[in-house]
């Protein structure tokens, strides 16, 4: 097991290097740091000094890949590539445009993100599985057809509509919870209810439909027929056999996104004013803080790959037929 995990982590390295290379190309080769400075400082009427100052402040005043003026190992370490890209592997994200340490900000902001994403995931799973089982129980009837059509209608509605509509209905018309904001500790719950609720409702359509197909696939299998032939009631078949076996694809689908929960959701967090990583990213995009965007791209990839590794491991834990090789 341990050997397998180590090998998977080693496999992940070239992928992360690829990601790193892509971001480096995007941020420093497609546009030179000079272009970025010109853009941020206001295009045409910019003096050379202002550009140089901008570059020096961010550490962009070094050569890209090879520094001919330095000697020894510094030829490669005193460059933008080493400073901005290689150091990401050590999770040294550098500092943002306003001088704050990105690594520190991330460590502070991931908890509010998690506080929304985790309840959202758990409540969502419960709701979607319940609905999907219900639809699967009534398969082939008008209930089933109606349920599927309802799912298609629900998944055709833009996610933004759920948020705006929910905020208007619950926050402004009914005045049940504050529309947006955040607080520390238990006080935060009243701010979390609405985003979590909306998150769950927004996912009903697509998730219920997806889980329904998983259940139906499982219901068509031989062991279900055997269980029925032995005289097992339909509900018992569904809960004892179908649910248990269908949990394998459902759980593995969930494990992939577990690490990504820290990243939060861009849209939800910015609409509800949650100080998580999602709104951090969106603020960085709108203020064109390239350092933060770079850090988030790298972090996101690391978490995704972590999710893939966890998925493979969880496969073996829930399904004894699969062996690690």
């Amino acid at each position, binding site marked *: 097991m341990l050997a397998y995990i180590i090998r998977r982590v080693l496999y992940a390295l070239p992928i992360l290097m690829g990601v790193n290379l892509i971001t480096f190309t*995007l941020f420093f080769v497609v546009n030179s740091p000079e272009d970025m400075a010109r853009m941020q400082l206001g295009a045409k009427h910019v003096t050379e000094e202002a550009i140089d100052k901008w570059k020096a402040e961010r550490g962009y005043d070094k050569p890209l890949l090879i520094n001919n003026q330095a000697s020894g190992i510094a030829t490669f370490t005193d460059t933008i590539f080493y400073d901005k890209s290689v150091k990401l592997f050590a999770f040294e994200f550098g500092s943002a445009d306003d001088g704050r340490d990105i690594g520190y900000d991330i460590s502070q902001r991931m908890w509010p993100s998690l506080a929304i994403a985790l309840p959202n995931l758990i409540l969502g799973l419960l709701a979607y599985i319940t609905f999907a089982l219900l639809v699967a129980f009534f398969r082939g009837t008008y209930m089933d057809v109606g349920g599927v059509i309802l799912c298609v209608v629900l998944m055709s*509605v833009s996610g933004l509509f759920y948020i705006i509509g929910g905020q208007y209905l619950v926050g402004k018309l009914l005045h049940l919870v504050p529309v947006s904001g955040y607080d520390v500790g238990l006080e935060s719950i009243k701010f979390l209810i609405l985003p979590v609720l909306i998150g769950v409702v927004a996912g009903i359509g697509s998730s219920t439909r997806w889980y329904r197909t998983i259940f139906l696939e499982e219901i068509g299998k031989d062991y279900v027929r055997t269980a029925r032939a032995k005289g097992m009631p339909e509900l018992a078949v569904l809960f004892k056999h179908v649910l248990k076996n269908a949990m394998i694809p459902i759980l593995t689908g969930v494990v992939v996104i577990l690490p990504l929960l820290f990243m939060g959701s861009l849209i939800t967090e910015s609409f509800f004013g949650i100080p998580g990583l999602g709104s951090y990213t969106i603020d960085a*995009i709108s203020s064109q803080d390239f350092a933060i965007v770079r850090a988030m791209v790298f972090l996101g990839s690391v978490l995704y790959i972590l999710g893939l590794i966890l998925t493979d491991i969880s496969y073996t834990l829930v399904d004894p037929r699969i062996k690690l090789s």
Partner: protein
Amino acid sequence: MSIIPVLLWTDALLFFLVLAIVLAVFYARGKEHLAAPWRQVMRSRMGVASMLVLLIYVCIGVLDSMHYRKALPSQENAGEQHYSAEVLSVLDLLMGPIKDNVETTYSAPFATHAFAREMQQLPDGQQQRIYPRLKYAGIHLDDPQTDRFADIFSRSMMAVLSGFLGLLMFALLLVLWLSKRQSKSFKEMFNLVVRGRTEVPWRVLLLTLGIMFVLLCWCAMLGSKYHILGTDKVGQDVFYLAMKSVRTGLLIGTLTTLVMLPFAILLGIMAGYLRGWVDDVVQYLYTTLSSIPGVLLIAAAVLMLQVYIANHPELFETDAARADLRLLFLCVILGITSWTGLCRMLRGEAMKLREMDYIEAAVAFGVGKSKIITRHILPNVMHIVMIAIVLDFSGLVLAEAVLSYVGVGVDPSMHSWGNMINGARLEMAREPMVWWSLMAAFIFMFILVLAANLFSDAVRDAFDPRLRK
């Protein structure tokens, strides 16, 4: 007035796409194995209804893609003809009054007075804050307070009536044509259609068409007299904005797939069929790309595109050309983030296919690798490609709105549902709320996405061999 046609990049690609689809239809008609699943789509009620709705959206999009620029009134001594920097489309021409009737600021749907009070000078010199009369909505009414509802009602009735008349004409022609073709009497055919006993569900088709006719007449009759969906912050008609956004939504949904398709097909099949180092390289490529969260990759790429555009203003003749290039790049970037899923599926399918007997037979006959791929594998994975195209479409249309909200979507000057939502969002806090821009964008988007989802279900049922009965 003379005009000059303008062909933007996305226009060319859209026309190419429409042409390709038309050619593909003609090609498929002669081939039974290609025509059969499509006939099944045409037999499902959901399939034809949603296809008709999609077709109408496509018509709007194509009309909006025929661009031109008007000539400026030439000066006396200027030898060279100059053209206006504003790029218009045929849709603008058709919607003429609706486009040009620009108020000063917000007004609610069917309102005759503005949404906000304005200071106005009374004849006796005093100043008063009143709701000013709109310049273009309901000006034919003497007393808007009393006449408005009666006027709207009578016009709506007229619209419904003319819509039904149009439908009736169309239905009669259709039944006539059908009875000729299937050599039945007119009455017999009419009964079949009305009872819904025909092979192609003509009744559903006619009903959908009827609703469309009525809506069209209603918009045409009321649109020129009122702002049927209100006006936005700068007084533009929201209905016009929503119609203009159709093209953007369609382009994002289709061009993205068009861009990614060659990569996904080529790399996926090569990896699955050739295996070895090709497989390793392709797998590495798509694992790397898919491990970057999509929104972040798009955000990073669009940020860099913004930098590039800001530094090279000389490349673009008009604002429309700049916005157009940004749209195209957005499609490319979306394509790069979304081809991995299809590529993975095709690789798996190609791996399955290469073990098939007929491929082995082809190898034994000495058929070359490239020939096997094009003749034997490609046609047999096309159903997956087909399903992926229609499945992706609705997701991409929805993604556009989210990306525009994040600020990495289409150019802010471009008409799109995302930009409409983004602009209206700031007015959420207003009392009473300005809801019509949001609602219009959401409804236009919802109908398109719903039609696309229903259509993709019908297509999947017809093409997926596992679901075939």
